[in-house]
């Protein structure tokens, strides 16, 4: 068994177009290193040079946000599903437009 990792559309250029890939690791950090060996550059899109998760990336283990499970130290087990998604606020349209307008005013 391995860990299934779901890749968002925007990052599939790193996985040869694959929607989901398999990886291994006892923590999220381990898993991302494992994936980066196979899909070079992927880790860099998710983790900042300072070593934290990118602000606009959300990662979930079995549907729960890893930021509340230890972030990159979150423990993983075989059979877990890891989902990577770009951060989108609910009512994303409203926010995108509102943020743009506010930016316009400043």
């Amino acid at each position: 068994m391995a860990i299934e990792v779901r890749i968002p559309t925007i990052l599939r250029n790193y996985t040869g177009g694959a929607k989901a890939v398999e990886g291994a690791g006892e923590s999220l950090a381990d898993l991302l290193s494992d994936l980066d060996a196979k899909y070079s550059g992927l880790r860099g899109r998710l983790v900042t040079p300072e070593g934290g998760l990118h602000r606009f990336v959300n990662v979930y283990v079995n549907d729960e946000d890893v930021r509340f499970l230890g972030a990159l130290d979150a423990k993983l087990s075989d059979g877990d599903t890891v989902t990577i998604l770009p951060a989108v606020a609910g009512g994303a349209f409203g926010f995108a437009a509102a943020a743009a307008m506010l930016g316009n005013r400043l």
Partner: protein
Amino acid sequence: MARYESLLDACGNTPLVGLPRLSPVVPEGAPPVRLWAKLEDRNPTGSVKDRAALFMVRAAEAAGRLRPGDTILEPTSGNTGISLAMVAKLRGYRLVCVMPENVSTERVQLLRMYGAEIIFSPAAGGSNQAVATAKQIAAEHPDWVMLFQYGNEANARAHYETTGPELLRDLPTITHFVGGLGTTGTLMGTGRYLREKVEGIEIVAAEPRYGELVYGLRNIDEGYVPELYDASVLSRRFSVGTRDAVLRTRQLVEVEGIFVGFSTGAVLHAALAVAHEAVKAGRRADVAFIVADGGWKYLSTGAYGGTLAEAEDALEGQLWA
């Protein structure tokens, strides 16, 4: 007393109802685990957003940002527009909503009935087009007032001052609060209040995980995290997919007779997860969650009937919460 001087005074104080049939069964002798639904669809325009709209308008009035006859500009395709339209009408303002042209006809009809004016942004261009349209309008009308619910402290304060105290009054034994994560106002305000008053309370967020089409538009370097969001208020955060949200939405009306929108289905999914964990651990739990709105505005999606797979297809590409 259920008499109010005006509709605005009837905002809040919504019922908290138990869900005896959906609450998990606990083994004999084990402490009870109960689910409670706070019916925010009982607000004046039928959603939790009435609280935020009223507080944001009052705050802008108090700060002198809004004067009678002013125009409020709100980019929204959702409940906030409807709430603001009602508040604007009763307080003497004009409301202009900017929204994508592919929103449901119910929304458009409701907004127009309440007196809002609508500027459509072309659906084809996605969020980039929405941003471009919004920028253009703001530049053309520098005097219009934008309340910006994603960064407006009065949005969260509405819940700190009303939703939170109501929940504690009606359920002093509360152990978990579960809400949907959008502007984050409900969770931030209610969560902060309850954390101050209830030791060990868990504040749980349920966020919608949309179909791929929605995320397909997003570049990871250009994401959005609402300015109101403070992760330290939350204990846990769940991502709930379309299928689970639809399943729970249907279950809530079938089992408990509560007809809700899909965002509430997502919230119930997270509430059930923490409730079942409590049963497993043999812990007492009173899990209160927010019913953000009723299902009426979403009937035209077709996702209330047919199989779950059909419902999922019907909602693919839509911002269903």
